[in-house]
């Protein structure tokens, strides 16, 4: 004992300093309480049995002591010891000759005891499971919502039958509505699988049909899990999901036969390699089974040699296609549910169908949102092109490079202004200004000289495009540059487990709407718009009315390019900024303009929507293959042009130019 004295002394000092008056009294109370509960059931605690332990745990749970949870945990972990000297329970640690004791209520050192005085308490597996579920109940009723939420997460990850009762018990006292709802859902999921009576399970299963969470779907499909079996005839008593036809998609003939072989119901078929190996093994004097090696270069020769070997008994007889077909025909293949009760599997099937229908509808809604966001990107990328094409009949192949220029402007601004929100606010108008300038310069220097020569313009602007791309590569390098979005654009808008859309995409959608409104306003409500429309419809007549078509062309080209710059910033926020990023959008932009029809904002909008919806729709049918999606989309556009050569919204009359 001499070593213990100073520690006790120090402890007392500490306790006196730290815990004056009431606090200390309470703690003593609690300590005596936990210990006294244990003392009441001393026998059961010291030698717990699966049946007897319930009473202890009930009392512990009823006490509502925070230290009780810790106790249960350490009890299950075999860290609780009985000090036979005073008959009290401690946590203890082996220190060789002695054990260092810890007060179970306060967690403070409580001296030490000699080795032979303490007795380790060893709850068996069954008891530990009971303790474990009691612990879950503690966590589920923990005052801290985060702990309760964590416990639910753990429960959802590893659902088992024991947790059902404590989970149900904890619902009553739950105050937080969100957690309460979650608990109810989880309870339904658990009872669908583990409830005792069939009625309870069916009720729980049908309550799952109204949700669409992943957990519910997983639990339903777990109930519906099947095993593939084979038999001479269908068993009467089994809960059979479906019968499989060998040779169908669900069960290819080869797989079905392999299954028969696995079950020992049919002899293994020899593959071509095996036959060859058998022939090679029986090669003697340049002959196999009397057939010369020279004749083994054909299937017929090999078959003869193998038949001879089989007759001699050196190899198993050849399994012919006929015997395989016969074996398949004389057996039935079926899927059997793991769950024996057909009422439950039927209910689960109905519920799952219902859930899947709802999930499908939600997926469609999600797909719609995706398509809308893609459409707004295409709209932003293409509207500038559509304006210049509509007004001037000029295809600007460098349009994609203006998008890239805008994105790099955003990147450079971010290098100078570190605050992401601020830099974005600066970058948008700056990108517009830069690309507006570039567009006006291009118009003045090149395009003006090539009016009425659209094919030459196309090629000349292509020359500009490769030049700009290479310049960007020389200046910024070939690696992708990040354009970081501000924090408030991170994250996503989550409607439910299926529908979610990232904030950046929402922002781009809003940006597209703003630009749609802005362009409509400029074209329909301003003097510039009036002049632009006049030049679009008839440049000669507009000229005689005092409009300067030259100036209008320049401004229009600048405007179209400026919008491309803004689109560049928007695209750069969610894709990476590279010198080739413009080239990735240029063809889609052309498609949008061509499909939508030239010289009309609504046409471009319709084109962008069609292309966006189409691309997402095709991707949905074949999600692993975006290349195929693009291929089919382009093919669609080619065919679409057959039926509406002038696009969805075609100009009529003289404005159409024919």
């Amino acid at each position, binding site marked *: 004992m001499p070593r213990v004295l100073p520690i006790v002394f120090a402890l007392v000092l500490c306790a006196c300093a730290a815990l004056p008056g009431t606090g200390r009294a309470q703690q003593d109370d609690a300590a005596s309480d936990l210990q006294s509960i244990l003392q009441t059931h001393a026998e059961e605690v010291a030698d717990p049995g699966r049946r007897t332990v319930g009473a202890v745990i009930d009392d512990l749970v009823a006490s509502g002591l925070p230290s009780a949870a810790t106790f249960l945990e350490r009890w299950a972990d075999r860290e609780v010891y009985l000090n036979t000297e005073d008959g009290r329970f401690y946590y203890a640690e082996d220190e060789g000759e002695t054990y260092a004791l810890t007060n179970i209520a306060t967690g403070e050192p409580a001296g030490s005891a000699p080795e032979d005085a303490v007795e380790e308490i060893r709850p068996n597996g069954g008891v530990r499971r009971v303790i474990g579920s009691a612990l879950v109940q503690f966590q589920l009723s923990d005052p801290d919502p985060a702990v309760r939420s964590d416990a639910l997460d753990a429960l959802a990850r590893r659902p088992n039958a024991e947790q059902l009762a404590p989970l149900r018990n904890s619902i009553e006292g739950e105050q937080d509505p969100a957690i309460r709802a979650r608990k109810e859902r989880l309870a339904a999921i658990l009872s669908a699988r583990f409830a005792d009576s069939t009625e309870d399970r069916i009720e729980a299963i049908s309550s799952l049909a109204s949700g669409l969470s992943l957990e519910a779907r997983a639990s339903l499909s777990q109930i519906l899990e099947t095993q593939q079996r084979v038999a001479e005839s269908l068993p009467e008593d089994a809960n059979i999901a479906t019968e499989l036809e060998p040779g169908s998609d669900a069960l290819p003939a080869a797989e079905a036969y392999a299954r028969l072989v696995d079950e020992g119901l049919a002899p293994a078929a020899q593959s*071509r390699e095996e036959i*060859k190996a058998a*022939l*090679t093994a029986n*090669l003697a004097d340049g002959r*196999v089974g009397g057939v010369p*090696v*020279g004749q*083994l*270069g*054909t*299937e017929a020769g*090999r078959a003869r040699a193998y038949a001879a070997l089989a007759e001699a008994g050196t190899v198993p007889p050849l399994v012919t296609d006929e015997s395989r077909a016969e074996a398949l025909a004389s057996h039935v293949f079926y899927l059997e549910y793991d769950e024996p009760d057909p009422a439950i599997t039927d209910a689960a099937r109905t519920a799952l169908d219902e859930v899947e229908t709802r999930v499908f509808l939600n997926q469609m809604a999600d797909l719609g949102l995706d398509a809308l966001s893609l459409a707004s990107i295409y709209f932003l990328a293409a509207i500038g092109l559509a304006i210049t*094409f509509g007004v001037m*009949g000029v*295809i600007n192949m460098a349009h994609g490079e203006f998008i890239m220029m805008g994105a790099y402007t955003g990147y450079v601004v971010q290098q100078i202004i570190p605050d992401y929100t601020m830099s974005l606010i600066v970058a948008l108008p700056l990108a517009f200004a830069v690309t507006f300038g570039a567009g006006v310069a291009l118009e003045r220097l*090149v395009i003006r*000289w*090539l009016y*009425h*020569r*659209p*094919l*030459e313009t*196309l*090629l*000349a602007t*292509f*020359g*500009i*495009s*490769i*030049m*700009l*791309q*290479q*310049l960007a*590569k*020389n200046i910024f390098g070939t690696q992708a540059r990040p354009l970081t979005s501000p924090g408030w654009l991170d994250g996503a808008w989550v409607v439910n487990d299926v529908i979610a859309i990232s904030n950046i995409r929402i922002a781009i959608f809003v940006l597209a709407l703003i630009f749609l409104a802005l362009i409509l306003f400029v074209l329909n409500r301003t003097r510039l718009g009036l002049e632009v429309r006049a030049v679009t419809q008839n440049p000669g007549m507009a000229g005689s009315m005092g409009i300067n078509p030259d100036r209008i062309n320049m401004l229009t080209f600048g405007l179209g390019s400026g919008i491309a710059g803004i689109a560049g910033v928007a695209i750069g926020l969610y894709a990476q900024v590279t010198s080739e990023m413009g080239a990735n959008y240029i*063809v889609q932009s*052309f*498609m949008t303009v*061509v499909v939508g029809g030239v010289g009309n904002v609504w046409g471009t909008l319709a084109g962008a929507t069609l292309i966006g919806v189409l691309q997402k729709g095709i991707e949905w049918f074949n999600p692993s*293959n975006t*290349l*195929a999606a*693009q*291929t089919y989309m*382009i*093919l669609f*556009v*080619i*065919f679409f*042009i*057959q*039926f509406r*050569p002038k696009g969805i919204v075609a100009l009529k009359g003289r404005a159409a130019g024919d």
Partner: protein
Amino acid sequence: MTRKTFLTENRSIFWFLLALAVFTLVVTVLSTGAGTGAISTSFVKTLGRTLCLMLVAVAMDVVWGYTGILSLGHMAFFGLGGYMIGMWLMYARTEIIVAESLAAAAIPPTPQEIHDAVGTQIFGVVGASEFPAIWFFASSFWAQMALVVLVPGILALVFGWLAFRSRVTGVYLSILTQAMTLALSLYLFQNDSGLRGNNGLSGLQNLPGLDAVPQSLVSIWFFWGSAAALAAGYLLFAWVVSGKMGSVIRGIRDNESRVRFLGYHVESYKLFVFTLTGIVAGIAGALYYPQAGIINPNEIAPIASIYLAVWVAIGGRGRLYGAAIGAGVVSLLSSWFTSGGAPDIPLGFYTIQWTDWWLVLLGVSFVAVTLLAPKGIGGLFDLMGRTHPVMPARVGGYGPDKGARRKSEGEEEK
């Protein structure tokens, strides 16, 4: 008065074929395979490939310079031709290798075994071993040769028929052909397209069964083949654009409506030119890719077809020799600049490295040619002596259409 014949009407044919013959002779004499060895085998291959590019440029000139259809899809036909020949080359060569390795076994292989082993060899790289249906003819040389003509021909025919009958013209048509090219290259990029995805077909420089022949000799054979094809193609197209046929297609370019009102079936003429040039592009590709050794979907990307148009524009549209010269000069310059052959230019504060700046130079010079010298390189020949036997002074452009020939582009060859 001299009698008008095909050759006297087309003086450029004589000079072009003469120049080509002299060039072929010089290269042969200097080559490693058949001459002194002054020109390396790889450069002979480069020259042979350039001849193929000149052939496809001549075809492009007929379809763009003479008919006014700016097709951005002819390099797709070129690539398809390459794929078709590549399938046979790859299959036949792999079959020989596989048969050799299987012959080492105690039991001779069956034809089916060889076929399966070839499939595993070829498609192992994309995680497959089955032959897709499009490889059905790959084992037959003649069938695959026929496909070199048929596949680009039928694609051009179907696409052209769809496009021309709905009267898609001008920029729309260009965009549509570009879309076709993009769709094709994206399709070929997929691993399950049956043509090895982005790995493409490789090892095409090795002719099956001719392992004993050195590459230096093979390269000169292909060079001769390419020269012969260029000569034949030049003759064919000179014939197409001369005479009545030539007048009609030039009429279509300059004033399509008037030609239609005169009773010509414009769509048929366009379709004929489009398909014929597509087939020739396919043949040129079939000669090009065995010299390049590898073909992958990148070769079919839309940018390649745009470059083709750039070569023709720089060389001078509406002159077959102009297109050929443009393709030769620009592609050779391009490989000289990008392979680091051109010396760097130190400016003191910055060194211009041509590998980085070549594309900028190409872009600028292309814009400059379009704006300032629409006649292109071919226009230089107008400076030599009389431009044409009887050349009436032309007032204004050739026609009202947007693709019509401009006066500044000079008199075209007829």
